[in-house]
């Protein structure tokens, strides 16, 4: 081929590839744009003050209230329950895999944990509603059929692999010399892990927790199936609640006409969700980056 023609082709390809890479920026702009636009429309009809301070969320009823706090309470509740399962289990498992387990065990277990992460969330939803809730009802008879407890627990189990795998990466990349130094002073493996390795890997481990929290907040199907659709401002894990995500699903399933206030509420709810998870993701990103800069 003629070299000049080839050079033009090379340049054109580079430009095309650049556009593909830059496309991801357009996606973010698209998300932010759509959310801001519709949220803005929403706030033309509902005051920001009411949105943030009202204690009821009833956009689908005759007497409308738009207290996002109510949905946040549901999200907070399920997230706290999920994290109280996934955080200790995930962290202990990460320490075990990084510091205790033989290479053989690690190689055997890691792909199995990946399977856990591959199960679609609608499956976990089924499990929470039709297995975990009936099981818990045997112990806690007053537990209602839809509740934040079982959906939170199952969500926590779903998040374990995220926390254990990312934390393990962080623990594993702590230099061997630190371990040797601690062991040489006569520390046991347990002491070394808790007092030396974990603090050294803290920002990496924290990044995995925050990513886990962000995941829990954004999780949709488990809570839509098993936590119920009754927005209420409560910290009681035994009664039905509604999360932000479950509300969006609820509205989407109905026949809400475009342009109505109900339609706009899902964008306002989505905007709240995006702002919170975006903030958490950014914190996680920079924690991870700082960790890498220290050890890699």
């Amino acid at each position, binding site marked *: 081929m003629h070299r000049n023609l080839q050079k033009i082709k090379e340049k054109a390809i580079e430009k095309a590839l650049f556009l593909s890479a830059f496309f991801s920026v357009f996606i973010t702009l698209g998300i932010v744009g759509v959310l801001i636009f519709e949220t803005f429309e929403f706030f033309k009809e509902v005051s920001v003050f009411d949105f943030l301070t009202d204690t009821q969320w009833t956009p689908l009823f005759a007497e409308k209230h738009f207290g996002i706090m109510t949905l946040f309470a549901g999200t907070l509740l399920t997230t706290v329950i999920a994290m109280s399962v996934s955080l200790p289990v995930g962290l202990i498992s990460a320490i075990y895999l990084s510091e*205790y387990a033989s290479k053989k065990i690690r190689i055997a277990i890691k792909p199995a944990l990946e399977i856990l992460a591959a199960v679609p969330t609608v*499956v976990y939803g089924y499990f929470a509603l*039709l297995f975990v809730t009936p099981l818990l009802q045997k112990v806690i008879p007053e537990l209602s059929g839809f509740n934040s407890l079982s959906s939170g627990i199952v969500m926590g189990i779903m998040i374990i*692999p995220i926390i254990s795998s990312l934390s393990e990466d962080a623990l594993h990349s702590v230099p061997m010399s630190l371990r040797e130094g601690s062991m040489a002073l006569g520390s046991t493996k347990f*002491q070394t892990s808790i007092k030396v390795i974990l603090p050294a890997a803290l920002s990496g481990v924290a990044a995995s927790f925050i990513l886990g929290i962000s995941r829990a907040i954004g999780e949709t199907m488990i809570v839509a199936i098993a936590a119920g659709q009754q927005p209420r401002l409560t910290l009681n894990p035994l009664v039905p609640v509604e999360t932000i995500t479950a509300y969006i699903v609820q509205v989407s399933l109905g026949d809400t006409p475009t342009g109505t206030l109900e339609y706009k509420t899902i964008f306002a709810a989505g905007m709240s969700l995006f702002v919170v998870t975006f903030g958490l993701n950014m914190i996680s990103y920079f924690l991870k980056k700082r960790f890498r800069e220290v050890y890699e």
Partner: protein
Amino acid sequence: MDTKLRNRLYDKSFYIVGLFATLFGLIVLLTLLIDITIDGFSRLGWQFLTSYPSRKPEAAGVLSAWVGTVWVAAMTVVVAFPLGVSAATYLEEYSKKNWLREFIEINISNLSAVPSIIYGLLGLQLFVRGLNMDRSVIAGAMTLAILVLPLIIISTREAIRAIPTTIREASYALGATKWQTIRNQILPAAMPTILTGTILAISRAIGEASPLITIGALTYVAFLPTSPISLEFPYISLKGLFDPFSVLPIQIFNWVSRPQKGFWIDAAAGIMVLLIIVFFMNGIATYLRYRYEKRMRW
């Protein structure tokens, strides 16, 4: 008890606690699989796979749901794979280490953690309303393609990074241009790993329900998208892309949400179908990675 003994006890017991914590998820998974199999096995069969949903639980099936899943998954690959591989190639092979690359990187990392339902809101406004695609296969596929794009970019970058510099040098030393080197050497050598990442991304897309619910995919579909192959001229038709659809996770969600127990059996059987597809894809991905690692010795 003296301190030394206590420390040793802690140390030993952590072996057991740690192993249990690690196996905990797997025990739950096993329980889940057994529970679902017990619930749904009786319904699973040829009739279940070849029937449309129905008002009678015993007569209901997943035909429209699995066909919809295949359509959407296929279109998702068609859109996301070239775009993702191109973006990753640019970031690994062309871009210089500067603020723009950092910006794109942060952006992709952030997108990969955005809740999937948010993508549904974007798809709803952009594809369903903005581009007037309505609740069609193509609108669903575009939404899921955007959802899995960051995953494909991230795994493709890792795959490209794993190709040793010596391969690049060998190609350049023969007078190859940058693109020739990428197209003929780097991408083919990285392809098994790229495919592994892509299959995992698509299997994630297959399990997604919430973004498709948000864009308004139907929960009760008693027909199939227009077949892509027909016996009459011009034999190939893309009309199906613009037909309404449902997918397996949505069908399952619909059945779980019903109060009648009979539909829960349908849901369990539907989950079995979904899990078989997802696990099968994960199996292929793992196998590809394993075979590739064995074959390559740089």
